[in-house]
């Protein structure tokens, strides 16, 4: 299953886990699985219109999914997904 790296700001919703695995043929399917397993993540990832929040960037194998097929980007067994949330700490 693809591995998903969770940023610190979202770990309260994954029981503190920094990496989780989820089944899905695409990023969207995988995120749907994740949101079912960890319901608190849904609103952190998606807005009310079902689009990615504007303060979240998603990368598959280090590539921004906006340069791939967005949430429809296909995934393979060993793919790495990185969720990067906007932060501004100094």
């Amino acid at each position, binding site marked *: 299953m693809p591995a998903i*790296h969770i*940023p*610190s*700001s979202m770990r309260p919703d994954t029981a503190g886990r*920094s990496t989780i695995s989820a089944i899905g043929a695409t*990023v969207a399917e995988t995120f749907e699985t994740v949101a079912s397993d960890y319901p608190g993540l849904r609103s952190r990832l998606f807005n009310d219109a*079902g*689009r*990615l*929040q*504007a*303060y*979240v*960037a*998603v*990368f598959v194998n*280090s*590539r*921004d*999914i*906006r*340069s791939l097929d*967005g*949430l*429809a980007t296909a995934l393979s067994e060993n793919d790495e997904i*990185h969720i*990067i*949330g*906007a*932060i*501004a*700490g*100094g």
Partner: protein
Amino acid sequence: MADLRPVSPLNDEESERYERQLRLHGFGIGAQRKLRSSTAFVSRVGGVGGTAAMQLTRAGIGRLVLAHGGPVHREYLNRMQLAMHEDVGRPCSEVVATQLRAINPHTEIIAVNENVCDTNVAAFIEQADVIIDGAPLFEERYLMNAEALAQAKPMVTGAMYATEGYVTSIIPGQTGCLRCLFAERPADWTNIRVFPAIGPGPAIVGAMAAMEAIKLLTGFGTPLAGRLWTFDLADNFARVLHIERVADCPACGVPVAGNTRPA
């Protein structure tokens, strides 16, 4: 702006002070002179910006313009490298400027007891060859991003949260900008107390930001242009992620119908 006057050679004291970095392959006296002729603007001088300012001063940048409004609070002391116990209550900009002048008298330090806002951002950026964004509020970061784009100045943005951090170099016309990466701030990031922090995280971000500025100013090495260097000290995670320009970015893109955020 870069000083266009003829660049004098390094004197003996400078040659000795910078001897170790002058030995870096690809750096040398040419890069050192470029650095000495350059100005960086640093927004906020806390854990990230203060560390960046310190590293640039030690490296021998010619001039630093620092913007930070307000005093040192006791809770800053866990991450603000240049603030001491007795500095609580003193203006952050003044505290850091005093320390930087002590570190390297060759660097001109201009400290302003103000945070970036819409009435001062243009003047700050006009003075600089590179901008270091270490502000704890997105409103300040977005203002600098917009103004850096308008003035075609490179900006290094560095940020942290808990044990995580990231750094990237934004080069107008070449790379995505801060709004390309994050078009909006998180709804709950409303003040400077929202982020947890422990010293090594912001220190690493600040040091990386300084190195990025050095690379951009001197041509040394390869800057993180179009790439986001991200880490988490809690589990030793680190990656370089490729970031993209967004065609209809509200800051640097060409407006088109719809939105490029993935549906």
